[in-house]
């Protein structure tokens, strides 16, 4: 009997090629998307789950609540807070400081610039990364030890047998760590002995660990004072804590708050008389969830937003839903054509449940065929997707039985859900009625089918609105006025490893070169602002204080970056107090936002004095100019108060603007950098690359989203086309009668177009509120965002209508042109 059903299913698929194609093509593409999304989401959820014993492991993170500013969430933890928590809170078994630093590594006469992970000696006992050589408790015991990954061992030494080999490490000089003219201090490096080899980490981890050395080492660049007293600075420290089994994270956080309250005097920081824990708020994020956090600054590797994963999953479901609706609609619409077969089966004694199982089997067979096609599509697509995502997703059927089983089970579930409604409708046909009407009984509720079509269009329209808004927002953020010029700008980093004199002379040499418009030194440059200092200032004679960023620059910086001067003058070497070494009575620039916060107009601010309170000493600074706001932080930031001053000891970046002969300028830069000592690790990059990098993830998500949405819409249109063809066929007689009664071609086309327009218009009513609700929330994540005007909704609705019309139009015209005699004979 099953064989019989299968024959029936196969022949019917072959006989009705168009409908078979629509069903199978729609389901295949939908399944491909769904599986792709499933393995991507699974990969994202798999981060760090491969590590043993992480159930009680957390990352301790601080969020700064500076009065008058939005919360500033870090993925980091001030060094002394973690140290104190580890020694004072009994519920904490162990802590591990993890600090990735860009350093220079020399081995066998070659120099490499690598990320070195600087950790507590107990690191491998807290986070149990797999060692292929060495014991977790011992590898970092010695001050001069270092652990390499297998890949790094091959890269540095050409082989895996590296225990006992030595390398030298240096660079990453912190501000104030060396005296300005102490050249030996800047070029210092330290010998380390390889004590262990780490198995290469898979891609799905939050950690960076190619070179791991203990923070007891002489080579650790972080000054002791920051480790002891940097209570309110993230300083790039990821803080991991292992709780005792059964310990309550909330109790631990209250204990951390008590430590912070005892140790930090926010009054001294100018925040007023408030407990420090109200400003420095701490969180514990479970180790395995770290990858799924978003909006925190200072993660070792990029994280993913759970909202994005949820959105992607929802799109996967919607695509499958759209394909299922096609299947249900086409199957029930055409049920009439099968009425005779169904009636005969009933007369032959088939029970209803036998018919139901037959139709379910047909649905299952269709989705299984689709699955086979989907899997082969997937095979050819995966390499492209891997390249697009930059993540090896991989799908090995044999090695991953669980995945394959869930794909097959999921597919069967989809088949059953697709088949259930048609099976119910078909099996309900009354045999006498079916046979009386000569095998074309009206079947299935037209209302249900109409509702399904409306639902399908609603999904397409809502997704269409979302695509329009997402792309417009990305474009908007990309093209917004950043308050500075970023084109033709080359940034040189790593100059902190050079003596201060060398930094200045480098700027001078390059400025004189061909194709160079100008140079400027600074602590931070746009899109690279991790090193920015935050402090609190008070207008002389005023009561309240405000938090501000302090950016150290050479006088040429504002004009080099094309920042607009709103009032006063720029800094200049010709004014002694502009460039004096001390802070007292120093001339500074502020930005417009700071003037606003101080309650001053740009003109009114010039000549006023402010005190920097963070140090506890009143140091009056004089405002000589006000700049327009510049958005240095990137996409999601608002303008923050900023103060610009000259402080040669703190420059970390050298900006070079090109003009004219670019290649001459670049070869001069490269030549000059090569002439520096090799272990300094000074490199250059284009600011435009950094800028594009900011949007890469947004754009990638946008493109992925758009691709899936287009697919959903195409599948929906396929179904619509099938339904239109079917409806028109069924209406051949009606059209014939209308023509005999005098209807012209345009009348008939108009009639058919109106019939398809009604569900599209109804779909807008469903789609618009849903899309508005989601997108309104999504846009809240962007401080600079587009207004959610009606145009997006109207455009998506109009596009849906146009697509629906185009789908139906051609077929209708052809049908309406047939002779009415032929049309009437068709029944």
């Amino acid at each position, binding site marked *: *009997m099953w064989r*019989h059903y299968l*024959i*029936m299913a196969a*022949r*019917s698929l072959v*006989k009705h090629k168009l409908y078979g194609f629509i069903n199978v093509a729609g389901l295949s593409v939908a399944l491909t998307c769904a599986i792709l999304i499933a393995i991507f989401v699974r990969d994202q959820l798999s981060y760090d789950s491969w590590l043993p014993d992480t159930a009680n492991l957390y990352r301790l993170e601080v969020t700064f609540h500076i009065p008058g500013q939005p919360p500033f969430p870090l993925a980091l933890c001030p060094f002394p807070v973690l140290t104190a928590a580890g020694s004072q809170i009994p519920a904490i078994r162990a802590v591990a400081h993890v600090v990735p630093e860009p350093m220079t590594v020399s081995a066998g006469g070659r120099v490499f610039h690598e990320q070195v992970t600087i950790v507590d000696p107990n690191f491998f006992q807290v986070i149990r990364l797999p060692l292929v050589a060495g014991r977790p408790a011992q590898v970092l015991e010695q001050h001069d030890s270092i652990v390499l990954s297998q890949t790094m061992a091959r890269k540095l030494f050409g082989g895996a047998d590296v225990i006992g080999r030595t390398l030298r490490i240096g660079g990453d000089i912190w501000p104030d760590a060396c005296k300005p003219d102490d050249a030996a201090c800047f070029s210092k490096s330290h010998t380390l002995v390889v004590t262990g080899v780490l198995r290469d980490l898979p891609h799905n981890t939050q950690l960076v660990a190619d070179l791991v050395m203990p923070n007891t080492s002489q080579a650790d660049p972080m000054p002791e004072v920051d480790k002891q007293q940097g209570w309110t600075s993230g300083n790039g420290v990821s803080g991991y804590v292992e709780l005792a089994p059964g310990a309550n994270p909330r109790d631990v956080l209250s204990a951390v708050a008590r430590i912070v309250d005892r140790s930090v005097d926010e009054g001294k920081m100018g925040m007023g008389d408030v407990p420090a824990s109200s400003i420095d708020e701490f969180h514990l994020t479970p180790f395995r969830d770290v990858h799924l956090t978003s909006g925190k600054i200072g993660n070792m590797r990029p994280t993913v937003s759970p909202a994005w994963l949820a959105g992607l999953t929802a799109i996967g479901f919607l695509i499958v839903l759209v394909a299922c609706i096609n299947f249900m609609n086409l199957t029930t619409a055409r049920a009439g054509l099968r009425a*005779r*077969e169904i*009636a*005969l*089966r*009933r*007369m*032959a*004694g*088939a*029970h*209803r449940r*036998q018919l139901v199982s037959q139709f379910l089997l047909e649905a299952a067979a269709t989705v299984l065929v689709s699955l086979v096609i989907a899997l082969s599509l997937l095979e050819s697509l995966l390499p492209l997707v891997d390249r697009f995502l930059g993540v090896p997703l991989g799908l090995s059927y044999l090695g991953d039985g669980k995945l394959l089983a869930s794909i097959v089970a999921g597919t069967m579930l989809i088949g059953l859900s697709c088949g259930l409604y048609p099976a119910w409708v078909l099996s309900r046909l*009354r*045999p*006498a009625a079916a*046979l*009386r009407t*000569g*095998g074309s009984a009206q079947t299935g509720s037209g209302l249900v089918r109409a509702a399904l079509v409306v639902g399908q269009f609603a999904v397409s329209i809502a997704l269409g609105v979302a695509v329009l808004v997402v792309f417009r927002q990305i474009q908007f953020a990309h093209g917004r006025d950043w308050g500075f010029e970023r084109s033709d700008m080359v940034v040189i980093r790593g100059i902190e490893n050079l003596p201060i004199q060398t930094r200045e002379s480098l700027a001078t040499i390059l400025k004189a070169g061909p194709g160079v418009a100008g140079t400027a030194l600074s602590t931070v440059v746009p899109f690279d602002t991790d090193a920015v200092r935050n402090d609190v200032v008070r207008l002389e004679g005023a009561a309240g204080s405000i938090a501000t960023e302090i950016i150290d620059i050479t006088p040429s910086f504002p004009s080099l970056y094309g920042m607009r001067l709103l009032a006063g003058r720029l800094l200049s070497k010709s004014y002694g107090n502009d460039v004096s070494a001390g802070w007292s009575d120093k001339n500074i620039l502020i930005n417009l936002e700071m003037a606003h916060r101080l309650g001053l107009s740009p003109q009114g601010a010039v000549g006023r004095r402010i005190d920097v309170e963070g140090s506890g000493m009143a140091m009056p600074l004089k405002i000589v100019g006000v700049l327009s706001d510049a958005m240095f932080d990137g996409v999601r930031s608002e303008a923050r108060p900023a103060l610009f001053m000259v402080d040669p000891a703190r420059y970390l970046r050298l900006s070079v603007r090109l003009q004219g002969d670019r290649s001459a300028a670049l070869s001069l830069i490269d030549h000059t950098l090569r002439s520096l000592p090799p272990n300094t690790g000074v490199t250059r990059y284009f600011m435009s690359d950094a800028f594009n990098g900011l949007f890469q993830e947004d754009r990638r998500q946008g493109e992925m989203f758009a691709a899936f949405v287009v697919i959903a819409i195409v599948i929906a249109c396929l179904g619509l086309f099938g339904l239109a063809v079917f409806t028109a066929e069924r209406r051949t007689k009606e059209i014939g009668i209308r023509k005999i009664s005098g209807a012209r071609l345009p009348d008939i086309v108009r009639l058919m177009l109106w019939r398809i327009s009604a569900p599209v218009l109804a779909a807008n009513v469903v789609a618009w509120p849903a899309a508005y609700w989601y997108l309104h929330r999504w846009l809240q994540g962007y401080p600079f965002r587009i207004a959610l005007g009606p145009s997006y909704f109207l455009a998506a609705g109009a596009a849906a209508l146009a697509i629906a019309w185009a789908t139906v139009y051609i077929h209708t015209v052809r049908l309406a042109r047939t002779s009415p005699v032929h049309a009437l004979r068709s029944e």
Partner: protein
Amino acid sequence: MLSLKHLSKVYRTTEVETTALRAVDLEIGGGEFVAVMGPSGCGKSTLLNIVGMLDSPSSGEYWFAGHEIAGWSEGQLSELRKNSVGFIFQSFNLVDELNVFENVELALLYHKDVSTRDRKARVREALERMKVAHRSKHRPQQLSGGQQQRVAIARAVVSRPKLLLADEPTGNLDSATGEEVMQLLTELNGEGTTIVMVTHSRPHAEYAHRIVDLLDGAIVTEKVRMAV
């Protein structure tokens, strides 16, 4: 074999009420060959559908093989139908997607007590008997009307029903082929199968033992041609 007592059938829609059968009393004995005649819309097909348990009466009694079945469930009727009733239609009602063999096989598919081997044997036997065995692998569209009706008859008799219901079996056939079909039906009746046939053709009705004339849902005359 079967008896209808005061049986009526009313079709209701929201606006109109149509009486298709009006207090029909009819008794058909085992082995009888009954022809039902009447103008279009007189209720012939409704009568046949009710007799064939494809439709249920609005009122009255329907006794089949000693059981009053008017209130039976769809499942019970389905069981009774598949073991006792075979159908032949004017438009043959063969399934386009199935070949001749499979179309006939369909009638036995839901008989759990018939093994696959038996089923195949019985289908072959029925096809041979109807002289269409050589077209087993063909699809219905590839056959002539007469051949299609033979296949339909093969399907109707393959389950060895006691009652064969024929709804204008010769309506779509030319006269020679129509005669052949009537011969076949007579043969089947001769072997003991009860036949109820709806027809417009007086000559074909003459093959029956008894002719029932319907008008506006009621039996107007019953003419017995010969004793069973």
